[in-house]
Each structure stands twice: as structure tokens, then as C-alpha cells.
């Protein structure tokens, strides 16, 4: 449901962090779903060599099941974090790329780097996603900040097989609205995350688009 509101996410930088390093796959899934929904153009992932060694490389058949056709997916492995930033900026300025995911293991990119990425994202109306292995407390120019953790699924009663993937999504900072926390479940038919059915807690208002011009002031 949040991803359905892809509109406000475009043209901005978003930070998606795994709650713990072992939960990186959940954060990856959330980022990919966001990217796949936000654009029909190409999606580019970039990360350091270390990212693939530690967390595994993105796997085509898995991406396909997650709603992101591998045909429109490009991966760039960089030797240095500096190259990851450069690749993100280059890709964001390319009109054929709709979403760019940059994976960082190190914290503290700083305001300058994140602001540059925001500007690059705004220039082509693309979506820039920073994927981090752990939550970052450093200041950043990102429009939203998410902390994503894995959540136990509802296993099939008969077979005891794991059910549809569930994640715990915390929106810790939101320039477009209120922060909040949700348990989301992957809906295979809609190829999207939706609120988990068991989640009966009151939920804050969903993120909505606050017109950017109004926010900027006269």
C-alpha cells in the first residue's frame, strides 16, 4: 500500500536500513519492491564487492519472483564506496534509469553526499535508495528513513512451510508525513507488500504527498 503511493517517492532519496545485519535480505526485498513499483524503466543496483560476499549477490530468479523483471535490472559492483556513490549519481542522471539502489556497509555518508544524491534523483524524477546493513544515526538529506526487520510469517497450517514473507517496517523519518510502524506481508498476486492481516493495531495515517512547492515556501 505504501509502495502503491510510488508517486511521492520519486525524485527523492530514501534510506532503507536493515534492523540488524542478518535482516539485510528483508531490507533488500523492501527496496526492490519499492523500486519495481515506482518505475517501469531500468533499475540499477550498485554495491561494493564486500556486499556480495557478505550478504550474497542478487539472484535473478529471486528478483523475478519479487516483481522485478531481471531484463530491466543492471548490477554494478564497485571496488570502493566512492565508486558506489559515483555510479549512483551517474545512473540517476540517466533518463533510461528509473530507480537506483546503492548498498553501503559503512555508515556516515554525510550530508554532502546524500544531498548530491537527492539532487541527482530530482533531476530525472528517479528514485534513489540507499540500502544499509545497519540503521544509521548520522544526519542525512534523505526524504524518508526506513528500518526494516524480518517478521515471522504465518506458516501453512498443514505443511508447516514458511508462509508469505512478512517484514516489520519502521518509518523513522518522513518528510512527507508522519512516521509509523507496520507489519507488512508480501502479496504474491499483487506483487506488492500490504498490511499483514493479523495486524489489528491502530496504524498512523499513511504517507501522503505533501506538495513539494508548498513545503519549499515562497
Amino acid at each position: 500500500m505504501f509502495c502503491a503511493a510510488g508517486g511521492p517517492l520519486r525524485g527523492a532519496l530514501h534510506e532503507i536500513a536493515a534492523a540488524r545485519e542478518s535482516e539485510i535480505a528483508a531490507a533488500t526485498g523492501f527496496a526492490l519492491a519499492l523500486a519495481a513499483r515506482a518505475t517501469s524503466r531500468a533499475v540499477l543496483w550498485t554495491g561494493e564487492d564486500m556486499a556480495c560476499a557478505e550478504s550474497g549477490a542478487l539472484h535473478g530468479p529471486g528478483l523475478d519472483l519479487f516483481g522485478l523483471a531481471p531484463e530491466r535490472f543492471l548490477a554494478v559492483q564497485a571496488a570502493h564506496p566512492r565508486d558506489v556513490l559515483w555510479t549512483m549519481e551517474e545512473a540517476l542522471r540517466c533518463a533510461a534509469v528509473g530507480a537506483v539502489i546503492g548498498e553501503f556497509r559503512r555508515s556516515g555518508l554525510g550530508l554532502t553526499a546524500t544531498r548530491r544524491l537527492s539532487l541527482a534523483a530530482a533531476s530525472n524524477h528517479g528514485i534513489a535508495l540507499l540500502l544499509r546493513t545497519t540503521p544509521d544515526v548520522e544526519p542525512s538529506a534523505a526524504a524518508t528513513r526506513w528500518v526494516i526487520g524480518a517478521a515471522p510469517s504465518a506458516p501453512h497450517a498443514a505443511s508447516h512451510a514458511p508462509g508469505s514473507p512478512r517484514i516489520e517496517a519502521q518509518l523513522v523519518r518522513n518528510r512527507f508525513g508522519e512516521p509509523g510502524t507496520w507489519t507488512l506481508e508480501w502479496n504474491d498476486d499483487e506483487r506488492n507488500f500490504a498490511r499483514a492481516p493479523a495486524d489489528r493495531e491502530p496504524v498512523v495515517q499513511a504517507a501522503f504527498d505533501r506538495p513539494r512547492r508548498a513545503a519549499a515556501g515562497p
Partner: protein
Amino acid sequence: MSLWFKRLSTDRVARQQGRDPRPLAVFGKRGNADCLTAINAAAERLGLHPGVTLSHARALHPDLAVVAEDAAADAQLLDRLTGWCVRYTPLVSDDAPDGVLLDIGGCAHLFGGEQALIDDLAARVAGFGFTLRIAVAGTIGAAWAAARYTAKTIVASGDERAMLAPLPLVALRIPGETAATLARVGLNRIGDTLDMPRAPLAARFGPGLLRQLDRALGKESEPLEPRLPVAPYIAEQRFAEPIAREEDVLAITERLAGRLKILLERGGDGARHVELALFRTDGAVQRIAAGTSRPIRDPGEIRALFVERLAALADEVDPGFGYDMARLSVTCAEPCPPEQIGLGGSEDQAELDRLVDRLSARLGARRVTRMIAHDSHIPELASVTVPAQTDAGDDGWTAYRNFRESEGLSPRPLRLFARPEPIEAIASVPDGPPARFRWRRAQHEVAAAEGPERIENTWWNEEEGVARDYFRVEDTNGLRFWLYRAGLYRDTTEPRWFMHGLFA
């Protein structure tokens, strides 16, 4: 044209240790004795020559400086000299151990004739500190012999026979043993064999001698095998004043690309791989290559490639005292119909290609990848990453989706480890999923599991391992893993478990 670096080893030592007029010799083991293998001019004036044993030379001249030979360094130096000679002609071949061969047939006029080319080359090589003998002749054999055994520099065509006749037989580039055998029967000079009946010569000494003779005289052709493949399109520029600034290099690249464009258009080709060779004034040659994902001709695009390459190589490209020549070659060209340029199939695809080229130029082509699929159960084979610049045609994903549906493959993980990591797992049922396992020092209690999905290895890959039983498991914290047991349970008493991937 044959170049002979007569004192390659000693010149190399002198270049490293500074010029020294004193006698110097390089020695190495020949048979069981240490012999001099190269000497400098001062040592030659003392009456020494290569082949003298080291102890003998030391006894005669106690102050002779000697250095052990380093064949690898000599070979490397010759390789660099060969690379440098490419500035005169692309048809260059090294002639181990101490020579270089150049085919200047079609290019001497560019330098104002053969003599002018020789003068230019000799002056530059002397500047680098090498003793050089040059000879030009109609055949490789004649030039080779003239450089080493005569004082001639240019052998006019037709004079080969007269020039060769008084030379010793080893000047034919025949093995020393053959020459020694010939000497035993009284044949010492090339002239002695020229008019002999050919059949007995061939019968006695093998076909090698006659072939070398024919090649030197031009009766049999001997093609020069260029060291580097000759590029189909080349543009080059020499500078009166050396250039060093990056902007100048880029400007000249664009100008050269402009010239190449005309040639490419005429040939109906586009560049897939371009190489910029920068010739430094001190003789070093720097080569910068860049690939593209589709044939291109536009000078601006070629320039953009080198902007990234130069930025990526920032520290490795050192202009030193500047470059005095630049050459841009299209090392790989592909047919490219004129209407494709500028328009492309779709504007988006062209835009994406340009991005891929830029990224590949800066980071390396193998780092920028896309995925192609194969109809396979084996996860490593199902999806393969290939450099995004390669044009693989069909990427196979449509076929893979049909395959997945028809085979009913279980879900595949989002992230896959290139190397499955060993884990310690305890299964409650012998061939069932693990009840708990330890991965990267963390204990995981399995809450839900699905499997096994048995994936058999291909029979031609048997040493890679036997069948694997894959399980999709979720631990009590909600982390989802793809792990497998190697081998069938009944085949082994201690099954090995591996972590292969992570699900969202």
C-alpha cells in the same frame, strides 16, 4: 627493417645505475662455467668479447665491473622497445633476444624516406641510451644479417646476394650446430653455398638451410608476424611540442576520433573497442582501451569514453615530460548501418547503452553486469551475470518463466552466496529439514520449513558434488534461509549442510 640492440643487457644496467664509462660486463651460466654474455664498449676496447669465462676476464682485468644476467628484465625491456617502435609502423615484431623487426614498406614516405626514418629512430634510441644497429633491406633475412654483420644501413633491392655472399653462415639465422657442420666440410661463407646444387645440400643439412637462404634472397616470402594485431582503423597525430595536460589529450582524442569517423563511415563500420596510445617523450607508451556496448562513430561519444577512462586511471597515466605522439585505433569494429547512429532502436536503449559504456569505461567492463537466464534447476546455472556490454541477444527470461511454471520450481532466494557456506545443522528426522543450525556463529531455531527439493548435479559435473536437498526454512525471528544438505542421507553418515541464500 631490422634493429639490433647490440648491448641490450649492459645498456639496461647502465640506464639503471647511471652512465659509467668504465668497463662493464654481464655474465651468466653457459654450460658449467660463468661466461660473459654482454659487454659494453669500454670492455670491448679491452679486448674482451662475449663467451669469455668470468674467471678469465677477471684475471685479465681486475677492475672490470660485472653484473649477473637477468634474462627476464632483458625480455621485458625488448618488449617495451618493441611497443615503442609501433610509433613508426603497426607492423612490428620482436626478434628475441635482442632485435626488433619493422615492416616499413608502406610508411617510410611519411617520415621523408627511409634514410630520414632511420635517422629519426636512431637519434631517439640513442637518446634513450641504447647502442643500436639498423639495416633496411627487401627481406627480413637480409636486413637481419646486414644489421649484425655489416656496416650497411640500406641494402638496395637486388643487392642482397652481393651483400650476403661474404658473410658467415650464421648470418642466415641457422642454428649454431648446422653452421659448425657446414664449416667442417669447408663451407664458411654464405657465398660458398649460393651456387651449390640444392638437392645434396638439402639431403645433407636438411631443408632449414635452403629455406633460410631463399628467404634472405627473397625467393621465398617470410611474412612478419605483428606483435599486436593491426587495428582496422587508425588515426594518429605527432606534436611539435609535447602535450601533457588532460584537456589537451582529450581534445586531441576528439580530433583523431573525427578523422576516424570519416574512415568508419566509408567502411560502414562503428567502433566496439578503441585504444588510445600515448607515446611519451622518454619512450614509454601508454595504452588506454575502452569498449562500447554498440558500434559508435560519434567523436563526442568516443571522447566521453576516455574522460571516464582517464578519471579511473588518474594515477597510472603519468605524462612525465609530455607526449609527442598520440594514436587512436579502432581495435574492434562492427558493421553499423548509418541510420542507426543518433537515432538508435529506441531512445531509452541508446541512453542506457551510453550509461553502461560510461560505467564500464570507469569501473571495468566486468563490474557492470546484467543477468541472463538458462533453463536449469541448478541455481548457479539458472541465472548468469554477464558484462552488460556483451550483446548476448535473447536474455532467456521468458523461456525461464515458462520453465519455472512447467517444472513447478520452489521459490528461489533473493540473495545467493557465490560460495555456499558450511553450517552446523541438526535434523530431527534423518532426511528432514534441520531443527536448528548454526551459521556465522549465530544459533537459529527453525520454526517452519519446506522441502526437500532435490537438485541433482549434472552427470558431467560429478566432482562438483552429488545431489543436494534444498530446504526453505524460517527461524523463530522470521529470518528466511535457503539451505541444503549435500548428498543423499543414506549415502553418508555425517551429512554436510550448507547455507546458499537468503529470502526476503
